[in-house]
């Protein structure tokens, strides 16, 4: 069961058309390391996890990724809003416009549509959590590339927030991996108490 909150996790307000960035942002909307891929990957992997804490982390991080997916969709739609057909064409979005108009379709900047082969699920907790840690780092790198490609502060600010979340998720998945490794090695899972605050 999920409940929708009519609010973005972090505010997005892009006041001028920016079709070039609309196209590039699609990497995080429908690409292999997109927020859509991340959300589906984590929510899908929950069922074969051996520990409550890991199931909880995958549920909550997967849910947050869907909220990030909505932020990216908001950025894309606001970047396209008000752009003329000439401007869309100049940004290389004429093919996209032909097929999707002003809709926000999950594809990458090169037009490759989203596919479920992006959402790895081996059923092996260590393989899946290692995949998740890599996915967070790939998304962080993509956000940095996107920030390098624009001077538009209305775009950079939400991207900065999203980049930070990748780092926090990576940290939590690292802890999940420690938990399942301990279980596999027959040790008791690491204690939840910690001397240092990590949030």
């Amino acid at each position, binding site marked *: 069961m999920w409940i929708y909150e009519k609010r973005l996790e972090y505010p997005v307000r892009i006041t001028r058309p920016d079709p070039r960035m609309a196209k590039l942002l699609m990497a995080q909307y429908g690409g292999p390391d997109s927020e859509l891929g991340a959300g589906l990957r984590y929510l899908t992997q929950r069922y074969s996890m051996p520990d409550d804490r890991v199931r909880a982390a995958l549920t*909550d991080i997967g849910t947050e990724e869907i909220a990030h997916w909505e932020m990216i969709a*908001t950025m894309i739609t606001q970047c396209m809003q008000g752009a003329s057909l000439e401007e869309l064409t100049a940004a290389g979005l004429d093919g996209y416009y032909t097929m999707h108009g002003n809709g926000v379709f999950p594809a990458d900047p090169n037009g490759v549509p989203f596919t479920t082969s992006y959402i790895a699920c081996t059923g092996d907790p260590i393989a899946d959590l290692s995949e998740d840690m890599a996915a967070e780092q790939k998304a962080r790198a993509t956000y940095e590339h996107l920030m390098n490609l624009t001077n538009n502060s209305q775009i950079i600010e939400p991207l900065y927030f999203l980049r930070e979340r990748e780092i926090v998720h990576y940290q939590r998945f690292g802890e999940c991996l420690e938990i399942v490794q301990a279980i596999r090695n027959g040790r008791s899972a690491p204690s*939840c108490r910690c001397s240092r605050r990590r949030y």
Partner: protein
Amino acid sequence: MMNQTEQSLLARIGETRFACVELQLYLDTHPEDADARNDFNCYANALERLQAEYADTYGPLENFGSCPHDAGSWVYQKWPWMK
């Protein structure tokens, strides 16, 4: 267009919700951490108050019967992707 009071209330809800999201993720892998549980409870209580205040004045942020207001009013509130 939203007025400033509504915008600032929404911003406080956003900040408080974010603190809850962040603490919940931490608690997922550290469920016994008493300090984090205490922090989470403080923010969760504050969030409940802020959301009730918002709903009383502007209407519910969530649907699905989580708010004792006219469900129909939720439909017409601004969508988050609209400027």
